[in-house]
């Protein structure tokens, strides 16, 4: 009942649809009738005509029609709109009554049935006396009708029936009960719809016709009423454009009414109704801007129409409802496809509605304080249980005079309303509206608006004394304000939250909010902080804290008893509060003094604490927990230690801890997992705990600001003993690293190392320890983690007397070297043999034990080697050239060299190495040349291994070393044609130069060859420019050309293009390689003469 006075009536909010009554259907016992009725009601989708059907008995009494007024002359209207009117036309007065009657055309008892039908029609007509409601008859028939005009009996009997029932032919329908029932029904209802529209049209005409009888002085209310009715009938007729037009006129008329205190509510109520209709239609017509404009206009017009001051809350309630219902309309339109934006969405309307509800609550609290203790609702009771007209007072219905007819009654009436208002659950209404708004703002990306509304919701819950919900909401948004750093707002929220926590005696929450309100983010005044701190200390002593200001006295007394219950409770008195995400009044920053410690040094850990509260605060225990919990025992400070454990306001206090790391932790990280501070002792213990190395929600930003600040330099200088808090950095982890070894390891070697050489690296180890280094071990060899091939091509040995074999490992591990006395020196040679070239990183690792500490040391060296070069070779006879380039810094003696061929054969007989006994200095090169031929291969276009080149060499005094160089693989191509040219080694300018091309067919097929010579600037030539010829398998063709050089110097010969038209994909480009590209053309003496004579001629 609470807010229902302000709810819009459902008949206003629904979509008006034509009302058609169906009679003569027995839907309970007759299956055929039931099926017909179901076909009418089921599946009423948007494509069906908008009709609301109702089954009524044949003798149903319709609302009586009042006798028509012939003159309005003495008529004084009692109100604007009757409360029952809309419902009457939606649900009670049909536009059309349809009589269903079972009758086939060939019924044997036709006469009797016809008259029975006529009687039934007559009964309906009588009960509709005076109404314009249409009547129609539907004959339910068992047989499928014949096409119109064919059944003569039917048309004759139809005419007779119409006559008997006094019906027009258009109002008689036949419904064959066959398979296609739904199809027939849809056709029927379309016909009904037409009848209904005609009915509403005549109703509109009827209402319009009253207008001429009205006069502007006494019938102002009727103008509004009639426009509203016309608009409503238009809506029933589904003529929404005209409906909108009439509603708009009605709206302006309603504001022309003379408004005074007694009828203000009626005017506003009607204005609200009409506004609702207009906005609804505008949204329906997809003109949301019109709707918004209309609503704004409506609000502007009505905002100031407060009416009776004693009932000011009514205005607020009405305003709230206006915003709410507009918001709902807007939201509904969005669901149907309208798009809203961030700055124009339903949320704003819900928010404003909530705002007015808050006003309403405030006004209700002010106005409804007095009143009888036994509220009498008597003045609000009416005979009928409801009002006759919308928006009137129950105790003076129908009165339209400016002054209330009975002053006494008026007073009791108002009082009764005030008393009723007192019981309205305002907070509930406000919260519902706010949560609607929150949902909207969430949708339209307004996170801050959402937070703000949630704060309001929390406050409302607080007022409604639902502290748990209030805290839940406030707690949720607090962190948003904290991260946004709006301290003023955060403080306001915390203050409310603290009140909630106090009133529900929630100890933990109370302590948390106290701690944050005392912190540096709080904008509270000093005396407030001081009061809160005293309360906090009281709670820590297990005493009841003082009440928060601005709490009402009744809740304070309940809170007191709650607190004392809680305090006397045995149970655990220990609380742990994680403060990392708050901004507590005690700040903590902890650091390891260094990011790494050697294992033989004590680890230094510092904890800085600082209190921001107005009074000193003392604590009883400080503990740092570390990732290795074994160290925790060293990082505890307890009150028994007699150290100063009180923190002064605004002063930084430093606590030092130190401990020795265990040797197992060498190479590991030690992290601080948390810092814990215990407040209070007997009574109640609160562990304030920070994760990691302290810091809180605001410290990161403060550190950033401090880093940016220019002032910090000065600040640090002037206050040496107390470091600047903000620029203190945290160091939450430290590395335990091994002790610095006191041993020197030196490597002596002369890079580069040569391939296959037994390369010697000298290692000198000297102890600088005070004591004896025992158990010295050497690990030497290739550093692991390099290319996997290197470990197979590198061999390390300690034995330098002979060339080591492939079995030698790449890395010698843990070679025992015995003990080293202080200052003792030890030398060792390590030989390295590398079989492949490339840089290598070697690892030398010396480990020894001293006292109890194990130490190690690494030294790294690099090796280099020289590398041979590769060439590409083709088939046919070819030359293989090997270049040996010495990149060794020492002279190398080449002993011998030889080729080991695989697929190739040598074209020349084997002879002695050309390089025997050659000494190569650094950078010198020795070349050897071999003429080879590749025999025909079975598989073409594949790579063929050439073979190996063996070189025996040695440097000054090392053993003879044989290096094997694998020669590069060559790609073998079998070519269909082989071409070579015969031409002199040079030509002369303007002297004929004959060139003979030999073209050989190397395949077993006859080859067709196309040859063309491209013109060249440097030559004239004679011979076949373009020719096509055939070459038999194995035979060759010769082509002779006479080239005539025109220019001197190296000249490109005319290009010979050869193509095989039979096999176009053969790469003839490879053929060009066999042909000389250029020739040197010498200048002739005569040419020079010619040149001079020509010059002479031009000179003349």
């Amino acid at each position, binding site marked *: 009942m609470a807010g229902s006075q302000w709810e819009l009536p459902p008949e206003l909010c629904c979509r008006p649809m034509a009302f058609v009554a169906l009679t003569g259907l027995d839907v309970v016992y007759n299956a055929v009738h039931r099926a017909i009725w179901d076909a009418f009601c089921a599946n009423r989708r948007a494509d069906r005509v908008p009709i609301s059907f109702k089954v009524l008995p044949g003798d149903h009494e319709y609302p009586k029609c009042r006798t028509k007024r012939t003159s309005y002359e003495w008529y004084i209207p009692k109100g604007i709109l009757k409360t029952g009117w809309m419902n009457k036309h939606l649900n009670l007065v049909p536009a059309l009554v349809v009589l269903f009657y079972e009758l086939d055309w060939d019924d044997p008892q036709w006469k009797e049935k016809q008259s029975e039908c006529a009687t039934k029609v007559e009964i309906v007509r009588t009960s509709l006396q005076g109404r314009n409601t249409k009547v129609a008859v539907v004959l339910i028939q068992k047989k499928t009708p014949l096409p119109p005009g064919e059944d003569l009996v039917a048309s004759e009997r139809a005419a007779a029936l119409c006559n008997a029932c006094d019906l027009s032919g258009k109002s008689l329908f036949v419904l064959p009960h066959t398979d296609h029932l739904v199809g027939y029904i849809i056709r029927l209802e379309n016909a009904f719809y037409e009848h209904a529209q005609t009915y509403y049209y005549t109703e509109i005409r009827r209402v319009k016709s009253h207008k001429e009888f009205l006069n502007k002085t006494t019938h102002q209310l009727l103008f509004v009423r009639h426009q509203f009715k016309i608009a409503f009938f238009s809506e029933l007729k589904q003529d929404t454009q005209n409906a909108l037009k009439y509603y708009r006129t009605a709206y302006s008329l309603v504001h022309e009414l003379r408004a005074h205190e007694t009828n203000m509510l009626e005017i506003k109520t009607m204005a609200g109704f009409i506004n609702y209709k207009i906005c609804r239609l505008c949204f329906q017509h997809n003109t949301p801007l019109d709707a918004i404009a209309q609503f704004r206009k409506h609000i502007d017009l009505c905002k100031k129409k407060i009416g009776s001051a004693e009932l000011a809350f009514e205005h607020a309630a009405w305003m709230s409802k206006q915003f709410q219902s507009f918001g709902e309309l807007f939201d509904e339109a969005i669901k149907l496809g309208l798009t809203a934006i961030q*700055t124009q969405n339903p949320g704003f309307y819900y928010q404003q509605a909530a705002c007015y509800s808050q006003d309403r609550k405030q006004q209700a609290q002010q106005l409804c304080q007095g009143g009888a203790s036994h509220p009498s609702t008597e003045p609000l009771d009416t005979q009928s249980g409801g009002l006759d007209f919308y928006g009137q007072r129950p105790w003076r219905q129908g009165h339209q005079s400016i002054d209330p007819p009975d002053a006494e009654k008026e007073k009791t009436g108002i009082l009764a309303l005030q008393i009723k208002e007192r019981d309205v659950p305002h907070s509930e209404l406000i919260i519902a509206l706010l949560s609607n708004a929150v949902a909207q703002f969430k949708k339209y990306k307004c996170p*801050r608006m959402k937070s*703000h509304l949630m704060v309001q919701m929390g406050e409302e819950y607080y007022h409604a004394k639902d502290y748990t919900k209030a805290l839940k909401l406030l707690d949720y948004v607090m962190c948003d304000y904290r991260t946004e750093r709006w301290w*003023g707002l955060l403080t306001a929220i915390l203050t409310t939250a603290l009140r909630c926590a106090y009133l529900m005696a929630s100890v933990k929450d109370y302590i948390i909010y106290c701690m944050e309100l005392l912190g540096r983010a709080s904008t509270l005044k000093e005396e407030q902080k001081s009061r809160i701190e005293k309360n906090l200390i009281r709670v820590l002593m297990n005493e009841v804290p003082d009440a928060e200001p601005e709490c009402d006295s009744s809740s304070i007394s309940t809170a007191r008893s709650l607190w004392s219950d809680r305090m006397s409770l045995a149970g655990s008195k220990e609380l742990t509060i994680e403060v990392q995400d708050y901004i507590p009044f005690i700040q903590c920053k902890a650091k390891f003094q260094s990011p790494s410690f050697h294992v033989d040094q004590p680890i230094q850990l510092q904890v800085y604490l600082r209190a921001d509260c107005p009074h000193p605060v003392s604590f009883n225990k400080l503990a740092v927990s570390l990732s290795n919990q074994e160290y925790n025992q060293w990082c505890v400070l307890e009150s028994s230690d007699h150290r100063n454990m009180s923190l002064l306001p605004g002063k930084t206090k430093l606590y030092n801890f130190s401990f020795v790391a265990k040797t197992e932790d060498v190479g590991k990280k030690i992290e601080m997992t948390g810092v814990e501070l215990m407040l209070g002792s007997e009574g109640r213990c609160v562990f304030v705990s920070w994760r990691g190395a302290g810091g809180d929600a605001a410290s990161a930003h403060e550190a950033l600001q401090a880093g940016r*600040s220019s002032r910090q330099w000065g600040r640090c200088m002037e206050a040496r003993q107390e470091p600047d808090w903000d620029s203190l950095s945290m160091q939450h982890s430290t590395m335990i690293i091994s002790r610095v070894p006191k041993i020197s390891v030196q490597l002596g070697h002369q890079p580069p190392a040569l391939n296959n050489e037994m390369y010697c690296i000298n290692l000198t180890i000297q102890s600088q320890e005070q004591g004896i280094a025992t158990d010295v071990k050497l690990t030497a060899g290739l550093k692991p983690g390099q290319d996997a091939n290197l470990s197979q091509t590198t061999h390390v040995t300690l034995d330098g007397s002979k060339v080591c074999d492939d079995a030698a490992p790449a890395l010698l591990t843990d070679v025992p070297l015995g003990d080293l006395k202080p200052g003792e020196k030890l030398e060792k040679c390590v030989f390295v043999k590398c079989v492949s070239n490339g840089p290598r990183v070697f690892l030398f690792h010396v480990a020894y034990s001293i006292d109890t500490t194990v130490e190690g040391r690494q030294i790294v060296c690099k090796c280099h080697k020289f590398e041979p070069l590769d060439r590409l070779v083709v088939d046919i006879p070819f030359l293989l050239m090997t270049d040996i380039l010495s990149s060794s810094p020492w002279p190398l003696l080449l002993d011998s060299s030889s080729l080991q061929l695989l697929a190739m054969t040598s074209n020349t007989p084997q002879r002695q190495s050309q390089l025997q006994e050659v000494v190569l200095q650094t950078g010198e090169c020795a070349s050897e040349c071999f003429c080879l031929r590749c025999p025909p291969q079975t598989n073409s276009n594949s790579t063929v291994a050439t073979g190996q080149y063996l070189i025996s060499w040695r440097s000054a005094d090392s053993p003879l070393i044989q290096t094997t160089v694998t020669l590069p693989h060559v790609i073998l191509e079998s070519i269909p044609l082989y071409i070579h040219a015969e031409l002199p080694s040079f030509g002369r300018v303007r002297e004929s130069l004959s060139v003979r091309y030999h073209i050989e067919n190397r395949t077993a097929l006859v080859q067709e060859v196309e040859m063309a010579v491209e013109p060249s600037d440097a030559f004239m030539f004679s011979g076949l420019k373009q020719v096509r010829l055939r070459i038999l398998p194995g035979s060759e063709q010769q082509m002779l050309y006479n080239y005539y050089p025109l220019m001197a110097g190296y000249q490109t010969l005319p290009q010979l293009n050869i193509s095989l038209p039979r096999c176009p994909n053969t790469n003839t480009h490879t053929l060009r390689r066999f042909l000389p590209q250029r020739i040197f053309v010498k200048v002739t003496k005569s040419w020079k003469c010619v040149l001079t004579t020509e010059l002479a001629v031009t000179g003349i």
Partner: protein
Amino acid sequence: MNYTSRANNYPLYIRSVPTQNELKFHYTVHTSLDVVEEKISAVGKSLGDQRELYLGLLYPTEDYKVYGYVTNSKVKFVIVVDSSNTSLRDNEIRSMFRKLHNSFTDVMCNPFHNPGDQIQSKAFDGIVSGMMVQTG
């Protein structure tokens, strides 16, 4: 009437007259940032640097008008005025913002001011007070 300017969304300076009900204005300014951020991100996509600093009326409330202005370095200025104050047109608001911006630049040029700290400047106070008195 209420002036604020802020960077990185926490307040650098807030002042309101009359001082009662100050909290409500703080909330109004804070919530208006939703719109400011949305506008900045929308503009950022289309026009790049050629941005109009003045954002105009941010959103309508029943009682107040909220205007916004964002500098190129994303420092936000918000002015809240009473809806009934009709003497303030768009142009006046625009020039007020420009004045604020100039004064803010002066504050930033002060070598002793640490950017990001609350603004404590007599000159800036003076400018703000002047505007508040002028507009009533």
